[in-house]
């Protein structure tokens, strides 16, 4: 029996280690790149030079030195634009993800542990809220709030908190029924203290996974919104915007679409794997 557990544990631990480090490295680089973009970007992301339009990436014939990933139809450096686009993407991911998590998880935890009328009110609220079609809801919000970074963040939070609340409520209910919670009550622990010290550590793995998942979703939502031009109002580059522009010149200059798309994909993947990796890394059963 011990051998069977040992094998499984070893496999998961190996996967968790690789997963955690690879995703952490990618995201770390991205964050660094985004923070230092104004200084380390090779070119000015907004600088247009029609003579240098549609230059291929450095390994293809016809490339110009300095434009590592090529240029778009207006001569703007793709690499620099991706780096600057990361600023928007990561800001949305981190802020929207965290706020959604805090609001949703708190409400979910309260509903799941306190039950009674608190649960009744919160559950009905979730049901009604989720009845609104999310895409229309977000477009409506942005129409009302006007385009901009904060509008996107608010839109994501307003729509997605229910995802957290539902799942965390279920987890909290399951944990709340456990005997160790009753044991804490018998020992004299107050409700708030029990939620924080006993229940939360057991719900945390789910929260972490959902949080990183939400960050990935936030990146995609932002990309979709900038694809349809509902994102930030300035000329600052966004990955979604680049993808939209790259669509028109996909035959002549595939790199304008592919590189931001690939970066987007890797980033979302990294977020989800980060969550799984963290959850496994801190699971006492696997230690």
């Amino acid at each position: 029996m011990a051998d069977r557990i040992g094998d499984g544990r070893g496999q998961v631990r190996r996967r968790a280690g690789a997963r955690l480090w690879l995703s952490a490295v990618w995201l770390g680089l991205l964050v660094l790149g985004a923070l230092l973009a104004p200084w380390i970007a090779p070119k000015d992301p907004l600088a247009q030079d029609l003579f240098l339009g549609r230059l291929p990436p450095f390994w293809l014939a016809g490339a110009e030195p300095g434009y590592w990933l090529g240029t778009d139809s207006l001569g703007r450096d793709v690499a620099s634009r991706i780096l600057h686009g990361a600023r928007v993407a990561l800001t949305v991911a981190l802020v929207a993800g965290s706020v959604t998590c805090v609001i949703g998880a708190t409400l979910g935890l309260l509903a799941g542990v306190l039950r009674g009328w608190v649960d009744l009110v919160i559950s009905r609220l979730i049901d009604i809220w989720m009845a609104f079609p999310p895409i229309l809801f977000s477009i409506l919000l942005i129409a009302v709030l006007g385009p901009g970074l904060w509008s996107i963040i608010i839109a994501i939070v307003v729509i997605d908190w229910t995802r957290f609340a539902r799942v965390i409520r279920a987890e909290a209910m399951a944990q709340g029924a456990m005997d160790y919670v009753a044991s804490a009550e018998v020992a004299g622990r107050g409700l708030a203290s029990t939620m924080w010290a006993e229940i939360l550590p057991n719900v945390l793995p789910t929260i972490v996974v959902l949080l990183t998942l939400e960050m990935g979703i936030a990146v995609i939502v932002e990309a979709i919104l900038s694809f349809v031009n509902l994102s930030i109002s300035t000329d600052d580059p966004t990955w979604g915007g680049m993808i939209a522009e790259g669509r028109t010149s996909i035959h002549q200059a595939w790199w304008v679409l592919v590189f931001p798309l690939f970066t987007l994909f890797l980033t979302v993947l990294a977020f989800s794997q980060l969550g799984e990796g963290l959850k496994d890394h801190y699971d006492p059963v696997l230690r």
Partner: protein
Amino acid sequence: MRDLSIRVHGARERLLRSVSLAVAAGEVHGLVGESGAGKSMIGKAILGILPRAVEVVAGQILLDGTDLLTLPPTERRRRIGASCALIPQDPLTALNPSRRIAPQITDRLVDILGWDRAKADARALALLGEVQIADPARVLRAYPHELSGGMRQRILIASAFAAEPKLIVADEPTTALDVTVQKQILRLIAGLQARQRTALLFVTHDLGVVSKVCQRLSVLYAGHVVEDTDVRRFFASPRHAYSRALLAATPKYTDPESSLIPVPDAVIEAVRAEVASADRSWHG
């Protein structure tokens, strides 16, 4: 079963260590041991439902003289399906919660044994009567969650005896039940078994139950058969030290001072040594 040894793929330790036991037609044979001793594994090996991670490394399972392990998988499943059945431990999870009771009994008869639907339905109705369920027609139309644990266990028993199998493996069928319900269920099983002359392999950790329903028993420790003898002789004077210790640990309200005595460390050491030397001679 002859010298059956099984283990997890890639593991060194065997889960069952050259287990030999024989169940005659119409006989009730008890399998006793603590949790982890391997009693469930024996039942699963016979029925061909071992977990995928577990492999058979040696031995034979003979059903009516044919070694099941040498048969091709489809033939083996057919044979087992036709002549064996299981009474599972947990009545809560053994029934499909989203289907009514009737198909859960009759499907096996129709699909695997080729009965026609009407015959199967009639048999199901008759059987529920035999397991003393009042209003069997209503129960057949009900869903599992509408019924109590005791009733669900009766349905599972009816299901197992439905096709008059030659061998039934009962895997701790009364462990989850109240003591008064346990008595009724055991009476039922014993009654049906006697009437159909089914061979019954009764897996349990409760020596009290064994003394009531079984004619022979095998005591297991860590997948190793420690003693295999007939029930009267066992309870009169068990031969092996471990068996004696188990008996002393079993609660007896008629003799409280001589019961509920923990198994002495010395006895555990001795039986572990026995298992270790069995391992050595097996590989050697």
